[in-house]
């Protein structure tokens, strides 16, 4: 299938047109191009690239079954002289299909059959999928071994290391897992993805150390996480707990205060808001503890209020309005470009949802359905125009039939053809038997005729006058003309044959046009009838699909709304819990302060 940044030299125009749309992520158009080209047999059947592309595009477009059918067919072809490269690519895509569908056993069977013709990126991705398959079946050592096979320089290696490392830790092979993650956690890179993975590796190492009560180690790992990354909040929260566990309350407070200043809301930030006053309680600074509890309560109240507005906005449909693409008929808006336009409050509380695979998938489905709905409307609006054109063509045909335009023209062409044949026969005779007078021009014939007349006249009046001189002149002129005609016979014949060739060329062109016209003329009645019925059928089909499409769109809107609503409610409940805890903690402090018998809060 077409690789990311390489230039593909195209030897097939229809395949190239499909690539043009594919490279713009317009999978619907690209697939349509190829299947229409297949109908018209415009693709080179020897070249397997279009099939591979089609199979891959079906997968990218969310049609894994269709995709698998194509790849299975490619692999099953008995007369398949497909190169190892084609087979490997087919197996790779088939394996990926199964993997994405969660059919791990089938995915493994396909992926392990691949030889060594994949490019580095695809080979690395193949190993990544295999690693995850092994990890899902607790085959940790096999996953580890894959790291020896992976081509260097790809990000897939880091993903395998991360997944295998965390898998080993979960399986209580802590030292091996830690060693794997350590390498990632201390590796500096300019690559954006690698930086994120580095942070995640350090977070995983830090929380592992925290759980094992290795607080100083946890500190080291937390402090490696970037202060402006996606893991910053978790790192600051965890660092605070690590310091707290070591009794270093001021240091814990420093981390949590830093976290509380982060602009974006997050669960970690909300937890820090209540951990801060709790830490002040621990060092018996009740005034500060009460003050911070009040701040936390205010913060929670404000956020709960915003969440209530967000919940109302989702329930009223305003959230879905924001997800509609800006322009109708835009085939390939990436989910990320739509989410950029979401209002800040919604983004504040739902950003984690927006980064989830499930939401992305649903949003992409929604966009694709919207585009399909637009396409159906486009065809529904265009079909009447096709009907009009068909009717006009039919009228024109019937009118010409009535006038009998066709027949006279064909008859005339036949006459010309017949005349040509007669001429050609005559020229053939002349080339075999020299007949000089046949190639005389009209002017020459006229002059000769004049000379004959003159001679006759002279003969008549010869007795009355002496016309010997005139007679001699006429004889001379006659002689000259005949001499010229005789000696130039070969040239005249050649000119005649050349003219005949040119005539043949013109007649050939005429025949081509007549043939084309005749074909069209003969096929017209059948085609007209066929087209009418087809247009009628398609109209019905469009209407049926439109109503189903509309229902699916509504269902998808509900699904997206539900995901957003559940997330918002869950968030709100969590904040209410923190709010109540803060109130309870305040009451407890007041209680301990006002009752001398109860002593300290410890």
């Amino acid at each position, binding site marked *: 299938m077409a690789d990311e940044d390489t230039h593909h030299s195209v030897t097939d125009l229809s395949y*190239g*047109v499909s690539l043009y749309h594919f*490279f713009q992520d317009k999978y619907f158009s690209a697939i349509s191009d190829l*299947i229409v080209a297949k109908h018209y047999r415009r693709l080179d059947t020897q070249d397997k690239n279009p099939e591979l592309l089609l199979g891959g595009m079906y997968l990218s477009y969310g049609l894994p079954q269709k995709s698998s059918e194509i790849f299975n067919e490619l692999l099953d072809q008995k007369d398949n002289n497909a190169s190892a490269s084609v087979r490997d690519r087919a197996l790779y895509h088939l394996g990926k299909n199964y993997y994405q569908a969660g059919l791990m056993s089938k995915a493994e069977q396909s992926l392990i059959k691949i030889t060594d013709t994949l490019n580095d990126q695809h080979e690395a991705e193949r190993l990544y999928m295999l690693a995850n398959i092994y990890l899902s079946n607790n085959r940790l050592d096999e996953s580890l071994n894959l790291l020896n096979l992976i081509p260097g320089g790809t990000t897939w290696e880091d993903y395998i290391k991360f997944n295998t490392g965390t898998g080993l830790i979960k399986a209580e092979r802590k030292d091996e897992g830690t060693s794997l993650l350590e390498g990632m956690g201390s590796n500096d890179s300019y690559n954006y993805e690698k930086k994120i993975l580095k942070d995640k590796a350090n977070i995983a190492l830090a929380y592992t150390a925290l759980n094992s009560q290795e607080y100083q180690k946890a500190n080291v790992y937390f402090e490696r996480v970037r202060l402006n990354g996606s893991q910053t909040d978790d790192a600051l929260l965890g660092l605070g707990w690590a310091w707290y566990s070591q009794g270093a309350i001021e240091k814990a407070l420093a981390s949590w205060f830093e976290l509380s200043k982060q602009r974006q809301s997050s669960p970690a930030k909300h937890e820090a808001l209540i951990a801060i006053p709790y830490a002040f309680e621990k060092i018996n600074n009740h005034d500060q503890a009460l003050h911070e509890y009040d701040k936390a309560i205010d913060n929670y109240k404000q956020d709960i209020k915003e969440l209530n507005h967000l919940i109302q906005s989702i329930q009223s449909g305003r959230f879905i309005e924001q997800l509609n693409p800006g322009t109708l008929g835009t085939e390939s808006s990436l989910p990320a470009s739509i989410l950029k336009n979401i209002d800040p409050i919604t983004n504040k509380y739902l950003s984690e949802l927006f980064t989830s695979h499930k939401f992305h998938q649903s949003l992409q489905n929604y966009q694709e359905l919207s585009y399909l709905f637009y396409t159906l409307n486009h065809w529904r609006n265009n079909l009447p125009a*096709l009907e009009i054109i068909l009717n006009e063509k039919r009228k024109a045909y019937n009118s010409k039939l009535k006038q009998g335009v066709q027949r006279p023209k064909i008859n005339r062409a036949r006459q010309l053809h017949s005349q040509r044949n007669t001429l050609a026969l005559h020229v053939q005779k002349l080339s075999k038997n020299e007949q000089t007078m046949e190639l005389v021009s009209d002017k020459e014939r006229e002059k000769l005729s004049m000379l004959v007349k003159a001679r006759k006249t002279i003969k008549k009046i010869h007795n009355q006058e002496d016309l010997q001189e005139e007679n001699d002149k006429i004889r001379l002129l006659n002689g000259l003309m005949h001499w010229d005609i005789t000696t130039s016979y070969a040239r005249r014949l050649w000119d005649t044959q050349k003219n005949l060739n040119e005539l043949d060329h013109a007649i050939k062109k005429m025949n081509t046009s007549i043939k084309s016209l005749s074909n069209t003329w003969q096929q017209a009645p059948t085609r007209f009838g066929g087209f009418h019925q087809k247009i009628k059928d398609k109209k019905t089909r469009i209407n049926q*699909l439109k109503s189903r499409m509309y229902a699916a769109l509504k269902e998808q809107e509900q*699904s997206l709304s539900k995901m957003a609503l559940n997330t918002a409610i869950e968030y709100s409940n969590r904040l209410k819990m923190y709010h109540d805890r803060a109130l309870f903690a305040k009451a407890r402090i007041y209680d301990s302060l006002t009752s001398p018998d109860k002593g300290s809060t410890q």
Partner: protein
Amino acid sequence: MRHFISRLLIINIFVIFSLFSTTSLLAESSKTTTKNINQTIQNLKNEVLELNRDLFILEEDLLFSANTQVNVFLSMDSGKLFKLDSVQLKIDDKLVSNYLYTDREIRALHRGGVQRLYIGNLTAGEHEITALFIGVGPNQRDYKRGATQKIEKTDEALYIELKIIDNTSKEQPEFDVKVWE
């Protein structure tokens, strides 16, 4: 204080666990619902793809029958010597297409995609095709170049490719018209 931390963590774990438990039950039923929705969407996509194909074929057969059909395509080389902005296409001195390119489309052309610039009808016989390419040439200067070709239309569909090629030895772009057999 340790009691409090423990209680805090336990409560958090309890909340998370209880959410997880209910979520698991919900997750199962929502998985089924999601699966149904996904299958519905897949079915719809398949059906619309088939219908779309049939409609394109119907349109082409009705409007552009094979014996009069002419197609003009555009392809590009790597684009290092010429940044294409737009193309004008004339057939027998009549403007039939005037296309302005987006960056995305240019990138697709650079990678080897081929654009179908024009589809129309021509009578059999001789015709003239002229393309005018407008963009930015070497040394970042405005660039306008034309290419003209006489073509012979038979009763078969005609395919013409406009090619923009980087001639690295001359450090200039070249514009070619190729008629496909």
